[in-house]
C-alpha cells in the first residue's frame, strides 16, 4: 500500500471541507473518505486507489449512526454499521427486505465494520477493474477501453451497460432501498440536499468512471424511507454460486402491496444483473392493478429483462434473472404476517 496521510474530522462541515477535492470518489482523487474502510483499504492494497490523504469520518458516528423507526418512517444514519441495522428488531419486523439484504451480504467481521453509506458506494468486483496489471478499464483509466467486453465476463452486467463498461454493481442493500423508494440525505459544501435513492447512481454510458451524482466533498448523511404497513410484504432473494459468502449472480428485491390477490402497488429492484442498482418500472407496470399469479409474474419478468443484453459468458443471465424475479414475486405473494 502506498503511503498516505490521515486526517480525522469531528463535524460534517469539517468533513465536506476536507473532502472538497475528493472529486466524487474518483479513483485518481487525492482525498478519500474513510468510513468502514472495507472497500477503500482493499482497493488501496490492490493499488487500484491511491489517495494521498484519507479523511476519517468515523468520529461522526455519534450523530450519523442512528437507526430510527418513528411512526412507521425510517431514518438510517450513513455511519450505522450493517450488522446493527440487520439486527434491529423493528427493521427485521416491518422492513424485512432491508434486514435480509444486509444479512445475506459479506461476513460478520465485514458487517461489523462496514457503514451503510459506504455500502451503497462500494465498487464493482470486475476483475479488470480490481487488477491494475490490466491496461484496459474505463473505470480506472478513462478512455483505456473495457477488457471485460471480450474477456471473462460470466458475472458481468446485462442491464444498463454501454460499449464502455459492463461492470456489475455488486451490492445488495441498494436494491432494498430501491424497493422501498428510499431517499438520501446529502451534506456538501453548498449545503444539504435530499434526492431519491434511484438518482444516486449513474449508468456508465460514456463515462464509466463517474458512478454517482455526488458532488466533490459531498457525503451521504442518512437514508430515509416513508414507511407503509404493506412493506412488511417485502423480501430479498439472492442467487449465488454458493451458499456462504458470494456476490449475487442474480437477486431481486420486491415490496408488494397485495390486497385480495390484486397488486395495488409493487416495487421491484434487480441486483447482480446491472451496472447500477436497477429498478424495473416495466415489470411493476405489468403487475399493478392485476392479480398476481405465475403467468403474470412471468410477464413481469419478461418486461424486466426485455432490454437485457448478454455478451459471451454471461448470456445465461437474463434467463436466470427472470426466474429469480418470478420466484421472488411468488414468494412475496405468499408471505404471511
Amino acid at each position: 500500500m502506498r503511503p498516505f496521510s490521515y486526517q480525522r474530522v469531528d463535524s460534517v462541515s469539517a468533513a465536506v471541507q476536507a473532502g472538497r477535492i475528493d472529486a466524487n470518489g474518483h479513483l485518481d482523487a487525492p482525498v478519500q473518505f474513510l468510513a468502514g474502510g472495507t472497500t477503500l483499504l482493499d482497493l488501496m492494497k490492490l493499488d487500484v486507489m491511491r489517495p494521498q490523504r484519507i479523511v476519517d469520518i468515523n468520529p461522526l458516528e455519534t450523530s450519523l449512526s442512528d437507526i430510527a423507526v418513528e411512526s412507521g418512517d425510517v431514518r438510517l444514519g450513513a455511519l450505522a454499521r450493517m450488522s446493527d441495522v440487520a439486527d434491529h428488531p423493528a427493521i427485521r419486523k416491518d422492513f424485512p427486505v432491508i434486514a435480509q439484504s444486509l444479512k445475506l451480504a459479506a461476513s460478520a467481521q465485514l458487517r461489523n465494520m462496514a457503514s451503510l453509506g459506504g455500502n451503497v458506494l462500494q465498487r464493482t468486483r470486475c476483475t479488470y477493474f480490481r487488477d491494475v496489471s490490466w491496461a484496459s478499464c474505463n473505470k480506472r483509466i478513462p478512455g483505456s477501453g473495457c477488457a471485460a467486453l471480450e474477456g471473462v465476463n460470466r458475472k458481468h452486467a446485462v442491464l444498463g451497460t454501454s460499449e464502455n463498461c459492463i461492470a456489475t454493481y455488486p451490492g445488495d442493500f441498494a436494491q432494498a432501498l430501491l424497493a422501498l423508494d428510499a431517499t438520501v440525505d446529502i451534506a456538501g459544501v453548498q449545503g444539504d440536499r435530499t434526492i431519491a435513492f434511484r438518482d444516486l447512481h449513474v449508468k456508465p454510458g460514456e463515462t464509466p468512471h463517474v458512478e454517482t451524482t455526488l458532488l466533490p466533498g459531498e457525503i451521504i448523511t442518512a437514508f430515509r424511507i416513508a414507511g407503509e404497513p404493506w412493506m412488511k410484504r417485502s423480501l430479498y432473494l439472492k442467487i449465488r454460486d454458493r451458499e456462504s459468502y458470494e456476490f449475487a449472480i442474480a437477486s431481486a428485491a420486491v415490496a408488494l402491496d397485495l390486497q385480495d390477490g390484486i397488486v395495488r402497488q409493487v416495487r421491484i429492484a434487480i441486483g447482480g444483473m446491472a451496472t447500477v442498482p436497477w429498478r424495473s418500472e416495466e415489470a411493476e407496470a405489468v403487475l399493478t392493478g392485476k392479480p398476481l399469479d405465475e403467468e403474470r409474474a412471468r410477464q413481469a419478468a419478461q418486461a424486466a429483462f426485455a432490454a437485457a443484453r448478454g455478451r459471451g459468458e454471461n448470456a445465461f443471465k437474463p434467463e436466470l434473472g427472470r426466474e429469480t424475479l418470478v420466484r421472488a414475486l411468488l414468494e412475496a405473494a405468499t408471505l404471511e404476517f
Partner: protein
Amino acid sequence: MTYLVDGKQISAEPHAGQCLRTFLRDFGSFGVKKGCDGGDCGACTVWLDGVPVHSCLTPAFRAAGREVTTIAGLAVDGVLHPMQQAFLDAQAFQCGFCTAGMIMTAASLDAERLQDLPHSLKGNLCRCTGYRSINDALHGRTSVEADVAGRACGASLPNPFGPSIVTGQAHYTMDVAVEGALHLKVLRSPHAHARIVAIDRQKALAVPGVAGIFTWEDVPRRLYSTATHEDHLVDPDDTYMLDNVVRFVGQRVAAVVAETEAAAEAACHLLDVTYEILPAVFDPVTAMEPDAPVLHDKGDAARGNIYVDIKGEVGSVLEGFAGADAVHEMTYSTSRVQHSHLETHGSIAWKDETGRLHVRTSSQAPFIAKQKLCHLFQMSPRDVHVFCERIGGGFGGKQEMISEDLCVLATLKIGRPVQWEFTREEQFIGATTRHQMTTRVKLGAKRDGTLTAIDVHVVSNTGAYGGHGGETLAAALGNPLTAYRCKNKRAEGYAVYTNIVPGGGFRGYGASQTTFAIESAMDDLARTLGIDPFAMRRLNMVRPGDWMESVWKDPSDVTFGSYGLDQCLDLVEDALSSGRGAEPPAGENWQSGTGVALAMLDCGPPTEHRSGAEMALLPDGRYHLAIGSTEMGNGSVTSHRQIAASVLSTRADQVAIINADTDLTPYDTGTFASTGTVVAGRAVDAAANALLDNILDFASRHTGAPTSECHLDDDEIVCGNRRMSLQDLWKAGHAVGHRFEAKRKAYLSPRTVAFNVHGIRLAVEKVTGEIRILQSVQAADIGRLINPMQCRGQIDGAIAMAIGWTLTENMMIDDHGAVINPAFRNYRIPAFADVPESEVHFADTYDAIGPLGAKSQGESAINPVAPAIANALANATGVRFAHLPLTPDRIFDRLSHDA
C-alpha cells in the same frame, strides 16, 4: 498515539498506510495471522472494543484509543476462554493456522448467532477440517479421549501443540522477528511468453532502503526442478532460479531486497524491463501440434511441448471392444485449482557467526529443499540447516522449493537475514496448481456388466514447467484403472507444456482427475446397461488374489496387506438407503438423485521414499522422539507419538517430539504421497521397538531378571518382582555409560492398498442450477485407526476440499494466459455454510504391511467425492455433466437447453 493491546499500553506511531494486522505483528502479536490480506479469510480477526473485525482492512490509526484484543489476550490470568477450551476439547483444528481468527469470531457469538453458524462464520475460512470439528467445538462436544498408558494407539488423543495453537502462541513460519532481516519481493512477468532483453535497475535502486536487486544475470545458471522427490530425476530439470525467458504470467523476473516490504515492492514497480514478446500457447492439445510455439528447447524437436508421454496396454482393447455388448465413450475434464493452504509460502534465511546457513521454511520436504539449495549454490550439506516449526497447511503445494532459493541467494550476496512471504495473489499466479486434465474414457462391457475393455486417453496440462507432470500422469493412469479387473486395458497419457501457471502435486495427485472421469464413465455405462451402480462396481472391482495391474505388465511391489473395499461399498449403500440426511427442499423444481464412486490408493509412491526416526530415554524418565517428517495439519506428530507410546507401553504425553529439522532429526524424504503413517510411522515404530529392546536389555542386566520377565509400565519398568522408575533406570544406566538411544530407518516396499467409497444424495434446482447436498457419506478402508478422531478429520477435510473442487473452485485463465481470479474473493474455497456434515465409516481391517495395522489416508479420501456428486447429479437430472466445476450457470444452461 497510544494503543491498548491485550491489556497492555503501547505508544507508537503506525507507518503511513499501515493496517492494524502488520502493526500488531510488529509488536509481537504473532497470533494475528495473514491468510489473504483482503478481508476474505478471517485469519487476522481481532476485536476492536469487543467486536470482531478484519485487522487487515482496519487502518492502524483507527484502533488508537480503542481496546484491541487478539487471541493472546483472550485467556485471563492463564485460564483459557471457554471457546479456546472448546476448540481443544473438540480438537477443532488441523494445521491450526486459521484457529486464532476462528476463535476470535466464535468467542464473540451470542446465543442467537450460535444458532446460525452458517451465517455467523461466513468471514472465517478453514482449509483443513471441513468445519465438522469446528461445529463440534461450537456445540460443546468433546472428541479427545484419555491418554492411557499402553493404549495410545487407537485412542483419539490431542495434538501436542494444541494449547499453543488455541492461544496464538504456536509459531508458524513467519511468526518470528529476526533481527535485521531484510524483506524480499519479486517482480513477476506480465507476459505469458517473452524474452527479457534488458532490465534497467536505476530507478529501483534509488528507492530508499533498497539493499539489492537480483535478475537472471545474478543467479547461478543451474537447471533444477522446484518439485521435491527422493529421486530428482523423476522431475525435469527445466527451471532456472531466475531466467531470461519467462514462460507464464506470474513467473519471477527479478527479486528486490529492502529494509521494508513497502520499499521492496515500490522498487519492483520501478524496474524497467524490456521484453521481446514470444508467441504463447495455452491449450495443451494445440501445444502438441507441430507448429505450436515451443516452450523448452531441449534439442529434441520431435517432442515439441510434450514433456512426457506414458503408454501401456494389457490384453487387447481392440478384442475387448469387439466382444462387448455395450460401449460407452465420453470425454471428461477437471479444472485447475489451487491448494489454498491458509499459510502462504514463505521462508527466512540467515547466516550465523560461523558462516553456516539456516533456512526456516514452510515445506513438506525440508531435507530435499536442503539438497536443492546445496545443488544450486554448490554448498556442502554440512553448511546448510533447513527446518520447519509449525506449518499452516500444505496439501501438496509445499512439495516444492519455491521461496527458499531467493532468500538464500540474497543472504549469501548481502550477508544479512532475508525473509520472503508470498501474498495470496502470488499463491495463485506464482505457485503451483492441480494439473488440469482432459480424459477420454471408453469402456466396453457384456450385457451382465462384466467389463471387457477399458481405454483411457489423458492430456494433462502441466503448464510452463514440468514438476510433478510425469508422476501425476503416472498416478492418473495407475490406481483408477487398477481398481477394476478387466483383461483388456489400455492407457495413453501426455503431459504437455503450455504458457500458464505450472501444475504441481495436489492431494490425490493425478488420480483424482482420472477417478472423476472413470467413475463417471462407469456410471454412464451402468445406466446404459440398466445395472445398479453399486452392482456394477461389485461385479468388476479388484479382489484379493487378483493380479494388480493398471496397463503395465511389469510386476509391481503393491500387494493386499488387507482388503475392505467390499465393506466400504456395503457401508455406503446402507447409509444412502437409511433415510438419514436432509429432505430435499419443497417444490417441483427440485430434483433429487444419488451417486456413488470408489477410489483405490497404493500406499506410498512408486518412487523411493525414506524416513528415519531417533528415540532416547531422557533423564526425567520421558522419551525423546525425533522424526524428519513434516507436520502440516496432517496429524503426524500426534500419531507418531501414539505409535511410540504404544510400543513403549506409556502415555503419548510422555513422548516429546521434534520433527522436520535437518540438524535435529534424521533424514526424511518428505511428507507427501500419503507416507506420514506408512513410512515415517514405520520408522517410529522401528525406533521405538529398538529403544524398547535397549531398555529391557539394560534393565535385565541391571536387575538380573531375564528380559522375558521385564516390561515397561508407563513411566516405570517392572523386572521380575522389582519395579523402578525410568528416571532411576536412566540414572543407573548413565552411571555405567549406557546410552538409552535407538535410531532406525524405514523404506517403503512392499506397499499395500487403501480404498475409499463415497456416496452422495443431492437435490438440484432445475431453474437456478443450485445444488444442495442432502447426504454425504464416505467409507474408508485404511486399516487400523491410530487416532480415530484424526482419521475422521482427514476425511472430513478431504471431502470439503473435494466439494470446493467440484462445485465452486476454478482458476480462470484468460486469453493472455493470466489468472483472473487470484483472490479468495473470487476464487471460492468452501466456507462453513458450503460443507454438509458427512457420515464417515471405516472398514474393519488390520493391515499386514502398514505399521501397527494402519494404511495411508491423507489423500485418497478426496478422490471419489467429485464423481459421486457428478453421478448423483446425473441420476437426478438424466444429464451427464462431464466438466468440473459443476457451477449453477453450467447446470442451468444445460438443463434449460436439453429440456
